[in-house]
């Protein structure tokens, strides 16, 4: 599976919809839509900058969820996962958030700063609304892997290496063993993210997992193209370039 990541509202909410359509054409299986946050602890500089740009567009959690509804109307059919930090969810209210997500056709929710131990109340709401809460496991999870993996819903997100989101030249050598261990306990597809930015990495990983998440590499491309994406006469060409770039990255998946 190819799971691309975009920041809602970067560089503009309407453009986010068009980027999502381009990714769907490029063969995306699931879209991860990031909600911009003022203090994104799990993110590296690329996504931090994208978040700042989107916040300047006055993007908020409810607006990002509603953007999914607009994407549906514009023809985005693939599943969409909302990626948000916990505090915006807490302020909107956990129940209101899941109800709004359901109403707008959101297929899952991922909260990177809500570890298993803190997630019980939200898990209940997620089960009631049948919008899965996606869990993460990290290379440091060790004895926690079994607990997290056996409770996973939707798919299980494996953090490839120590660190925040961002392009990495190399992935750790032990990654295959880590993925094998996770797969042993998981009843849902196992996908890998954080640092995947090259088609060689995708080729190396594809035998060991069910999907790859590509975030910073695509968001960086959006940043490079943002001026052209924001002007009517250059937009289509920039969208095509974005689509081709995404296709090139995931070509080892046979997309």
């Amino acid at each position, binding site marked *: 599976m190819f799971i691309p990541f975009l920041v809602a509202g970067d560089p503009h909410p309407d453009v986010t919809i068009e980027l999502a359509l381009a990714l769907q054409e490029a063969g995306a299986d699931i879209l991860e839509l990031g909600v911009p*946050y*003022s*203090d*994104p*602890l*799990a*993110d*590296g*500089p690329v996504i*931090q900058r994208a978040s700042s740009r989107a*916040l300047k567009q006055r993007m*908020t*959690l*409810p607006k990002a969820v509603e953007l999914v509804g607009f994407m549906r109307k514009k023809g985005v059919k693939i599943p969409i996962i909302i990626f948000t*930090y*916990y*505090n*915006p*969810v*807490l*302020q*909107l209210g956990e129940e209101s958030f899941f109800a709004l997500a359901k109403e707008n056709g959101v297929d899952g929710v991922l909260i*990177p*700063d*809500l*570890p*298993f*131990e*803190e997630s019980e109340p939200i898990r209940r709401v997620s089960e009631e609304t049948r919008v899965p809460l996606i869990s*993460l*496991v*990290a*290379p*440091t*999870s*060790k004895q*926690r892997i079994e607990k*997290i993996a056996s409770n996973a819903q939707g798919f299980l997100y494996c*953090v490839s290496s*120590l*660190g*925040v989101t961002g392009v990495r030249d190399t992935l750790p050598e032990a990654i295959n063993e880590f993925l094998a261990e996770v797969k042993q306990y998981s009843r849902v597809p196992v996908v890998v993210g954080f640092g995947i930015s090259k088609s060689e990495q995708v080729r190396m990983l594809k035998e060991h997992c069910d999907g790859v998440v590509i975030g910073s590499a695509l968001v960086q491309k959006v940043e490079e193209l943002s001026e052209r994406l924001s002007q009517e006469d250059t937009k289509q060409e920039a969208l095509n370039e974005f689509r081709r770039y995404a296709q090139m990255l995931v070509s080892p998946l046979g997309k």
Partner: protein
Amino acid sequence: MYNVPNENGRFGEFGGKFVPETLMLPLEEIERALEQALADASFRKEYMHSLREYSGRPTALTFAENMTKQLNGARLYFKREDLNHTGAHKINNAIGQALLAKRMGKKKLIAETGAGQHGVAAATVAARFGMECIVFMGEEDIKRQALNVFRMKLLGAQVVPVFSGNRTLKDATNEAIRYWVQHCDDHFYMIGSVVGPHPYPKMVREFQRIIGDEAKEQLLEREGKLPDVVVACVGGGSNAIGMFYPFLEDGVELVGVEAAGKGVDTPHHAATITKGTKGVIHGSMTYLLQDEYGQIIEPYSISAGLDYPGVGPEHAYLASIGRVRYESVTDEEALKAFQWTAKTEGIIPAIESAHALSKAFEIAKQRSKDETVLVCLSGRGDKDVQAMMNYLKGESDRALVGH
């Protein structure tokens, strides 16, 4: 009986561990090491030894005789954390965490600092215990606090400028956490206040309670009874928890003083408990300054040491159960207290501490002569004299930052 946090790190509904999954194991390791260390007499002995021999504890308890006369009210005492090595209470915690890091076999420290006091304390203990130290500091704070940056470098620390956000403490903390996520296998993250995910708020409290423990004993000896009121300033709140904790079960009136900046009715303040709402910041559920969508709002205070949008979760809890009263003092009131303390008692306090002093003077005036008011003088004002000089010359507020 007062017994928080629980095993999940909760102070009532506050606290917890809201961090990326990668940090859960490092936090559990610290938690385990802390519990073992606190139960180990040899660790406590080593900690107390460093406090005595290196930091200069116990710090004095000073009767503010001249002020007491002029205020014509309660008897006023200062707990002199300004007399510590490096000039503030921050060193108590830095020594404790460095010894714990050493016990865990970690030789590299990560710290964040707003104005520099915790950064200097971290750099100091790193030098003392033979460790490497990397300090994250907002680029704006680096400009405002050149002297402390130089001190950290002299002590051998690497100071990393942070360019995100407003380039101040909040952003330095985010960056320190991000760096820790990447290097958690061999680095120890030394947090400077009673904030962050469990076990940090508890750990920092344990290393700062020495302030209240000593003060209680010293005041009992001097006055033959407990104080009637205890006052301390609150940014993240480490000196305040250190001071309050030993008095929590004694029925003593406790007052935390937040920075009201240009006034709590303006957008320019750091009065988190007075004006904040419940939310999650830097790994912990607490009160914070945020907008309706949960985006964190930058605080303002003349004192960079109080300029933080959150507050320790234990303070949020103590406010919610009504055990501690939290009030606020403006920049102007703090600066008046700063000058009056210097002229009247020959003590130049940190601007942070001047917030607590201002409130303490107001309280002492209203109380009878047989009552006592104890103030935590959390640090000395050497770092603030330049700011004061600029203020007295009538320069802009911008130049008026704390340490």
